[in-house]
């Protein structure tokens, strides 16, 4: 049980709570990467996903390309990209964006697909333009699945940002894991892992609350993504 005691000691050392290498700073960095990545990925994936879902076109392409993106090993993409971009954060952000796109895309187009055709036909019949159908009918009804996409994307990025620390440049919580391993400083490794796991669980919990809020008055439409 010495690992547990060592880890508790690590956490109670005030030196680990301040400065560049402190938990708060690393945590904010980690969240910063996550936020930036998800925003970039959403800016790419959400419009495409909505377009595919609304028009029904290129659906096969979306399924296949997100399948391929999923099979790509993140660590390989990261190391390959960083040989080109050099030391820095660029390769990590690029890789994380690539990883975050499939769930966001799937959430958007599957969300629109899940909307009852009759509802859409009714919206058209009462004279809504295509844009109104999309923004006033389809998107709101698809919201639970779209939020589900954000939830998966965010959690995947939080997890993978840890792996991204393998390349020098990115800070974040992964530094504790990768640097600690390199130095055989196991208390640091375990403490870093605990912080990452707790962060992931808290973020997931927040998304559960958001999904509940989004469902709000529509309990009948059960959240297929949980």
């Amino acid at each position, binding site marked *: 049980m010495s*690992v*547990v005691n060592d*880890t508790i000691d690590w956490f109670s050392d005030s030196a680990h709570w301040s400065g560049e290498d402190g938990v708060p700073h690393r945590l904010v960095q980690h969240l910063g990467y996550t936020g930036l990545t998800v925003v970039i990925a959403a800016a790419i994936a959400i419009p495409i996903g909505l377009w595919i879902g609304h028009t029904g076109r290129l659906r096969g392409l979306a399924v296949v390309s997100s*399948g*391929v*993106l*999923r*099979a*790509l*090993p*993140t*660590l*390989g*993409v*990261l*190391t*390959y990209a*960083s*040989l080109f971009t050099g030391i820095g954060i660029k390769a990590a952000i690029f890789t994380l964006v690539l*990883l975050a796109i*499939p*769930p966001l895309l*799937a*959430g958007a187009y*599957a969300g629109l697909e*899940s909307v009852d055709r009759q509802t859409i036909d009714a919206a058209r019949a009462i004279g809504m333009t295509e844009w109104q159908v999309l923004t006033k009918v389809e998107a709101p009804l698809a919201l639970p*699945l779209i939020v*589900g*996409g954000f*939830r*998966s994307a965010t*959690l*995947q990025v*939080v*997890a*993978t940002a*840890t*792996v991204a620390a*393998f*390349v020098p440049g990115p800070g974040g919580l*992964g530094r504790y*894991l*990768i640097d600690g*391993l390199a130095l055989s400083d*196991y208390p640091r*490794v*375990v403490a*870093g*892992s*605990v912080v*990452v*796991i707790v962060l*992931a*669980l808290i973020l*997931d919990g927040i998304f559960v609350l958001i999904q509940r809020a989004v469902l709000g008055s529509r309990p009948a439409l059960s959240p*297929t*993504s*949980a």
Partner: protein
Amino acid sequence: MKWLNANWDKVIDLLLDHLWLSGLPILLGFLIALPIGWYANRHRRLRGFILSVSGILYTIPSLAFFLILPSIIGTGFLDPINVVVALTVYAVAIMVRSSADAFESVAPAVLDAATASGFSAVGRAFRVELPLAGPVLLAGLRVVAVSTVSLVSVGALIGVSNLGSLFTEGYRTDNNPEILTGVVGIVAVALLFDALLVLAGRLLMPWVRAARTPTRAPISVRLRSGRA
């Protein structure tokens, strides 16, 4: 190609490591999740609880999971067992939801008919429910396979050798072809497992081919797959 030609032996060794490190968790995950999913579907009140727990398990970041397992199960820090256990937990987490959905997709009337025609509870589970749940189970298993194959590579960071080792080594030695070999190798293993599962599905469920549309994994599973 030059690098690959000169390093075939090494790549083959890493490939074999990769195959067992990913194959074992896929198999174990399926075998463990199947009864849990079946049970969750039978007991509605427990269903939500079981699915929540599996969801929480899947939330744990992989690298952190690999590194924290030794203090929980008492293995060595760099032991391949940590990778196998963590990946099995993820496989179970995805597959429990998939199999609960799969058993749910079996029409209650069919089950009543089976009972009426004299199937015992066990016989009904194995000879009626399981085959009918098959297509959805297969869809979930394919997702598990692809994500497991990809996740094994993270194990290279803790020194467990597999095709992901080509990434860590290639990065240190500034060797593009080596990294590329790893990426292509892992995608190939993922496609191989996927093809084997599809083939197994055709052999075990010849009647499914008649259906036009391929069964897809539930959206919850599709949203979540693919991570590190």
